[in-house]
Structure formats: structure tokens, C-alpha cells
């Protein structure tokens, strides 16, 4: 992975730039000690690291605007950062950039149960949004695996999803409004407590723009009434194909579970070893969750198990208690960590049409043999969002590069079967160069033209999303 060469002029002006940042922000909000900025040199794509020029931690929208305006005037690139949980390198700095962290923006500004929204500062963590409303019977639906740590700002930047988006949608479907600061330091408000825009849907454009169009400091989020209850069923099969066919039949029958999760044998084994969740040793495991009252749950699970039984499952376990439900989810939720116990791994995020599941899994197996690297598959089966985990050894020279090449081939396969490079993690630096596989020149040009509108000097998170060769002329 390449990053553009840092601007030598900016590096030479570091002292002057930091002094200016200290003029517009309180002293404690500007970090330039190389020892302290170390914490910001990477995000969760930790294979890549780079110390930033400095780090700023504004505590308000006004401070955010002041620091962006100063950087804009000085021509210094800015890399926005939520909680640094990006798996795509969305918050990876360059040497000549200032990291703008929203970690101090954590307040709940307004909670409105009559109109079912909450307005928060964007550095607040995903789970603590639900935490602020759950005693009143509400929740915030998007639930990325990192929800304990990840910030709403990052969720908006990457349009984060989660396990339950089959029913509730992803961030963009649950976002009502934002307060945002442009690179030039202008504060703008988009959307609000009412639904839909009268003019262009700028909110939809901002969501998922990977921090390249503006820095979101406040967000108005839709909150929903909690269902009466939820219960998962665990179904084991002796082939991936049959598990895939079972998912298709369930959807075809008109049942809409809130989540359909899929794990293959390597992941099942690792998760079982790590959590002792009681998973059977099978080729493919589905966890299907439904919601509602006791009677509604029984009605839905009745239909689901009836369909599953037609596919001769080797295991079918309907949760009978809250404890059993937690156990069923325990292994799935710990799957990434469990794989990490075994090996270094790279987590991919391609999405495929669900009808192409067996074909794609066969292709991944073939690539695994070709490259000599093992793969485990965790998969949001209802919506086609795959998470192949490629195992490699970071201490072995050349293994990371091999793993990246194999990852690229898997993602190209996802595109070939009609899917896309990333379902919920974002492009960042990780998949930047692969964008040519999914988009033509004009497709990329019109997207970059949008960045030209919001950030004409290309100072905000510039070396992300677009292939470096495609964006080069604009970044100069």
C-alpha cells in the first residue's frame, strides 16, 4: 500500500503550524509531542502506521470550525478521526496531516421521545447512544461489531451497518440530520427532526463519504421502540450450499428475521474453542434471530424451523432462555477475536448477491488453495455482506503482501458475481486501488467532482477512497 509523498514544505513549517493551532484552540487540545501522537498513528487497520504532524481535539463545533479554517488557510491536510476503529484505514494519517479527533464531543444534546430522535455530539460511541435512551424503552438500531468503542462520527463517515440491518437498515437509513463543518470552516446544518429533504438529499451524500466532504460534529439519529423480545435459533448444516439454500427459502417464504448470520467450519471451531458456546462441529452454522411478543416469536420460529427441517439440518437448537440466547450469540460476537487468537488475520467486507453464495464460497476456497493461506467465513447471510478472514503470519516476510493480494482477488470475485468491494467497512486506503475494478473512469470522476464542490483544495482526508492515480491531479 502506498501513500503519497508528504509535502516537504508543510513538514518544514511544523513549528509555525502548531503555533497557529495553539492560537485557535486551548493548549490541551493540541498535541504535537511525537510520543503522544503515537496513539494516533494508525486505526484498526494496524498493519499501516504513520505519525501525523499534530493532533487536535476540539471540544465544540465552533472549535472544530476554527481549527479547520486555520488548516485551510495554511494549506495543511486534515484527517478526521472518530474512535479509530476503522478496518479500512479511514483514519490513517500522513506525515504532513493534522489528525482532527472528535473524542471530546460526547454530549447528548437533545432526547425527544415524542418524535423519536436523539441529537448527540458525533464523538459519542454507538452503544452509548442506545445507553442514553434504553431506560425509556428505545434503542439506536445500527450495531457494528465495534459498537462499544466506535463513534457516531465514524459510523456516519463509513455508513456503518451491523448484524441487524436486514430489518433496520444501516446508518444512512437511521440518520435524520447533521451539523457539519466544511474544510473551509463553514458550519452547515443538513436535515433535522423532519423526514426527507425538499431539495437534494445532501444528508445521503454526506453519509458514507469517509470524512472527505466535511467533519460531522453533531448528529440527529432516529431511535426506535424496543421490541418486546427477541430469540435466536441455531441451525447447523453439513454443507455451505444447503445452508445457503435454507436462507433463500426462508426469505422466499415471507419471513423477515432481524438477523441471519452464517459461519463456516474454521470460524465455528475457533469460536467454540475461544468461547465454549456449545457450537456443533459442522460445515455451516446459521444464527437466525426474530423479534416480537412470545407468540409472535413462536409463530416466526415455527415457520423458520419448518423450512430448515426440509434441508435436513444436523443441528437445530431453539433458544429456551435468555442465557441460551446469549450463548448462541456469544461465539458469533467473539468470532473475530477468536480467529485473532489463532493467527494474524485480515478481515474483508465484500458484498455479493445472496444467490451467488455457493459460487463465491467455492471461489474463495480455490483462492485459499492457490495462495496457501487459510480462510474463515463469517457472513451476514440475509444481506450478502461477507467477512472472509484470511489468516497470515505478520512475522513471516512477504506473508502480509500475499494476504493482501489474495484479499484483492476475493474482492474482485465479489464484484464479478455482481457485488461490491465493501458492504460496511468503507474503502479507506485498504480498497482504494481496487476501485478501478468496480467503477469506470466517469463513475469515479463524478464522485471526485463532488469532493471538488465540498473541498476544492482536496485537504480533507485526501489520499483515501479514490485510486491515487485517479485523484493525483486534484490532490496537487
Amino acid at each position, binding site marked *: 500500500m502506498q501513500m503519497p509523498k508528504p509535502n516537504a514544505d508543510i513538514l518544514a513549517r511544523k513549528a509555525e503550524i502548531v503555533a497557529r493551532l495553539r492560537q485557535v484552540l486551548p493548549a490541551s487540545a493540541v498535541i504535537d509531542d511525537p510520543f503522544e501522537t503515537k496513539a494516533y498513528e494508525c486505526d484498526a487497520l494496524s498493519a499501516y502506521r504513520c505519525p501525523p504532524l499534530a493532533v487536535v481535539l476540539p471540544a465544540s463545533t465552533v472549535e472544530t470550525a476554527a481549527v479547520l479554517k486555520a488548516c485551510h488557510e495554511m494549506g495543511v491536510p486534515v484527517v478526521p478521526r472518530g474512535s479509530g476503529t476503522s478496518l479500512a484505514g479511514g483514519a490513517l494519517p500522513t506525515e504532513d496531516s493534522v489528525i482532527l479527533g472528535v473524542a471530546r464531543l460526547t454530549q447528548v444534546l437533545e432526547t425527544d421521545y415524542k418524535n423519536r430522535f436523539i441529537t448527540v455530539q458525533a464523538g459519542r460511541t454507538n452503544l452509548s447512544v442506545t445507553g442514553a435512551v434504553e431506560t425509556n424503552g428505545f434503542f439506536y438500531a445500527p450495531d457494528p461489531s465495534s459498537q462499544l468503542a466506535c463513534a457516531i462520527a465514524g459510523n456516519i463517515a463509513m455508513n456503518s451497518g451491523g448484524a441487524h440491518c436486514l430489518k433496520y437498515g444501516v446508518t444512512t437509513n437511521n440518520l435524520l440530520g447533521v451539523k457539519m463543518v466544511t474544510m473551509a470552516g463553514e458550519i452547515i446544518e443538513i436535515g433535522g427532526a423532519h423526514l426527507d429533504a425538499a431539495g437534494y438529499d445532501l444528508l445521503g451524500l454526506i453519509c458514507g463519504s469517509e470524512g472527505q466532504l466535511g467533519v460531522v460534529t453533531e448528529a440527529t439519529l432516529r431511535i426506535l421502540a424496543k421490541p418486546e423480545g427477541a430469540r435466536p435459533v441455531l441451525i447447523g448444516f453439513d454443507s455451505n450450499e444447503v445452508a445457503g439454500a435454507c436462507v*433463500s427459502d426462508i426469505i422466499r417464504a415471507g419471513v423477515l428475521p432481524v438477523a441471519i448470520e452464517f459461519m463456516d467450519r474454521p470460524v465455528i471451531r475457533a469460536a467454540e474453542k475461544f468461547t465454549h458456546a456449545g457450537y456443533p462441529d459442522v460445515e455451516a452454522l446459521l444464527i437466525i434471530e426474530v423479534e416480537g411478543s412470545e407468540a409472535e416469536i413462536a*409463530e416466526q420460529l415455527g415457520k423458520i424451523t419448518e423450512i430448515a427441517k426440509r434441508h435436513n439440518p444436523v443441528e437445530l437448537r431453539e433458544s429456551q432462555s435468555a442465557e441460551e440466547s446469549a450463548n448462541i450469540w456469544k461465539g458469533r460476537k467473539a468470532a473475530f477475536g477468536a480467529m485473532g487468537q489463532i493467527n494474524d488475520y485480515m478481515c474483508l467486507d465484500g458484498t455479493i448477491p445472496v444467490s451467488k453464495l455457493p459460487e463465491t464460497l467455492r471461489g474463495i476456497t480455490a483462492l485459499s488453495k492457490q495462495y496457501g493461506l487459510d480462510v474463515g467465513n463469517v457472513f451476514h447471510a440475509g444481506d450478502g455482506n461477507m467477512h472472509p478472514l484470511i489468516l497470515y503470519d505478520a512475522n513471516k516476510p512477504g506473508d502480509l503482501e500475499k494476504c493482501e493480494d489474495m484479499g484483492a482477488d476475493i474482492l474482485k470475485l465479489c464484484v464479478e458475481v455482481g457485488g461490491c468491494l465493501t458492504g460496511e467497512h468503507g474503502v479507506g486506503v485498504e480498497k482504494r486501488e481496487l476501485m478501478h475494478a468496480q467503477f469506470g473512469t466517469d463513475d469515479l470522476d463524478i464522485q471526485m467532482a463532488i469532493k471538488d464542490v465540498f473541498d476544492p483544495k482536496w485537504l480533507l482526508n485526501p489520499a483515501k477512497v479514490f485510486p491515487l492515480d485517479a485523484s493525483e491531479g486534484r490532490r496537487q
Partner: protein
Amino acid sequence: MTPTSEAELGEMIASADAPLEIIGGGTRQIGRVEGASLHTSGLSGINLYEPEALTLVAQAGTPLAEIEAMLTENNQRLPFEPYDLRALQGTTGTPTIGGVVATNASGPRRIQAGACRDSLIGVRFVDGLGRIIKNGGRVMKNVTGYDLVKLLAGSHGTLGVLTEVSFKLLPAPQATATVLVQEAEATSAATMAKAMASPFDVSGAAHAGGVTALRVEGLEGSVAYRGKALASLLGGEVGPFDWVAQRDVQAFAGREGDVWRISVKPSDGPATAQALRKLGAQEVIFDWAGGLLWVLVAKGSPLRQGVKSGHATLIRGAGLAFPPEPAAIAALSAALRQKFDPRGLLNPKRMG
């Protein structure tokens, strides 16, 4: 002009030198019209339908009725319940799926299943330079690059001419029940808020003529349970309600006057209606749990000044259809339009 392929459309736009009026079925006439007619009816047909993947891909000029018939046959549907404005606007013609997307047409189920823009997962379009652009795709989770899918939804043909649209579908419900509460407008917002705060997954919340209507949909046993529970919670009764008439605002069809569609914070609904009556509003129909007002008013009434937050669009009548935007937003919108259609060819006056 009626192109029969995307490539032909691209050439037509590339060689155009005067404004074009983009027309799907011509059944959603909102805003001002200028230019030679460009019809999308030649770009018709369902390209892909995978019921087991809840996915549909159709050319933009495909009649909506053709899509809905195919989905009904498979017990599926477009989640967002697109409205049909023909009776209301007095238009004739065949509504197309492209027109639905271009106007982000979303009915009562908006509050539960989202708007058209939320179900739309991919677009292909021709921009003002004649370039063929794709964005999104046919999968329901996709964050690859900027989301132009949302931007194109509701852009009224001003950023590009849609050629193909893809949707996430939902199973059609086995059963539907509506709980009716007889009450005055003033208390309806609170009733609807109470219903929406319940765990009963309400998929429609409307009020007009002294009746508040709350809809639940799903499996039979579940609907029976939730209908009863909701009726008991709100002090109402399960009864008949015409959600198609509600969706299409049939009550205002054929009646004299302007029709406005106003989106506000739901709890502001009744107060907004009161303010609008002072400005001459004759009748108000609430949808979206009070957050959407359909208003009938004498021609030319300056209704927009009664809307303090949210926005008002003139759906039927002469005048500025779209609300003026705050300066910063207007500047961004104009700059975006300049990028997508630098020569100002596509529906140039449509959105004001």
C-alpha cells in the same frame, strides 16, 4: 425524443444544445417545465428479479404497474408504498419506476420501512454531458464510494436521466389490521406518538376527519395480536381504512385549489395545521405520525410562510414548487448541479 437504449440517450444528451424536459410517465408534475420533451418510456423492462435475494433491477421507463404486478405474484413488494398522483394532479399517463425515484415518492409506510431513497440500492444514469454513470449496485449493503444513489433519488431529473434503478424488496405481509381512534386533531399527534413508541411495529399512522388510523402488518397471528394490543393501548377499535386513498390523497382529487405537501417534526403537526388554517388552509390530512401534512387551500395562497421548520412543496398549483434553501445549502446544491449538468440542460427550471 424517445431513446431506446442508454447509449442512444447518452448521444442525444451529448449532442443537445437546448434544455430538455425529462418525462417518465408525466404523472408527477411538480415544478416548472422547460425544454423539448425527452421520454424514458423506450427504456423499459425488468432486467433482474431475484425473489430469494429480495432484489429487483428495472429500466427507468418500466411502468410501475408492471413491477408491482410481478412482485405481487411473488408475495413481495416495494417497501416504501409509492403514491400515485394522477387523480390528485389530474394527469394521465403511465407512472414509471424512474419517475418514482426521481421524485422520491414515498407513502404512509415511510415511517417504518423508509422512503424510496432507503430502498433504492443502485442507479445508472446519463449526466448532462451525456456520460453513462453507475453507482451502488444490486446488493443491499454497499459503501463503495460516495452514495450517489441517495443524491439521485428526489433530484427530479436535474442531475441526470435515470436509465436503470435497483431496489431492496420486502415480503408482502400476510395480514394487515388498522386500529381507528375517534378523536380531534389536537390530540392525534400524541396518539400517534404513543403508537410509534409502542413495540408493535406500526407501519402507518394517519389522521383526518376526526379519525386517527394506525396500521400493523405481518404474519397473521402477529397482526391479530398487535392490532388488539394497540387498540387496547390507545382506546380504539380495529376497523376498515383505505390506505390507498390515504397514500394517493384521493380526498383532494378533483377539488378546486392548490395542494401542498409539508414535512415537519411530527409533534409540530397540529400547531402547523392551525397556522396554515389562518393562511386559508381548507383541509389538512396528516400522515407519517403527524410529520407529513397534505393541505388543500385556495389557489395562490402563500402557505409556505406558515411552515416554521421542515419544508413545504407545492404539489398542485402555480408558483414556486420547491422551498428556498438556506444560503449554504443552496450554494452546495447549485455547485453540485454545475458538476452533473454544466450546460444546464436537464430540467433546468424544475427545482426553481
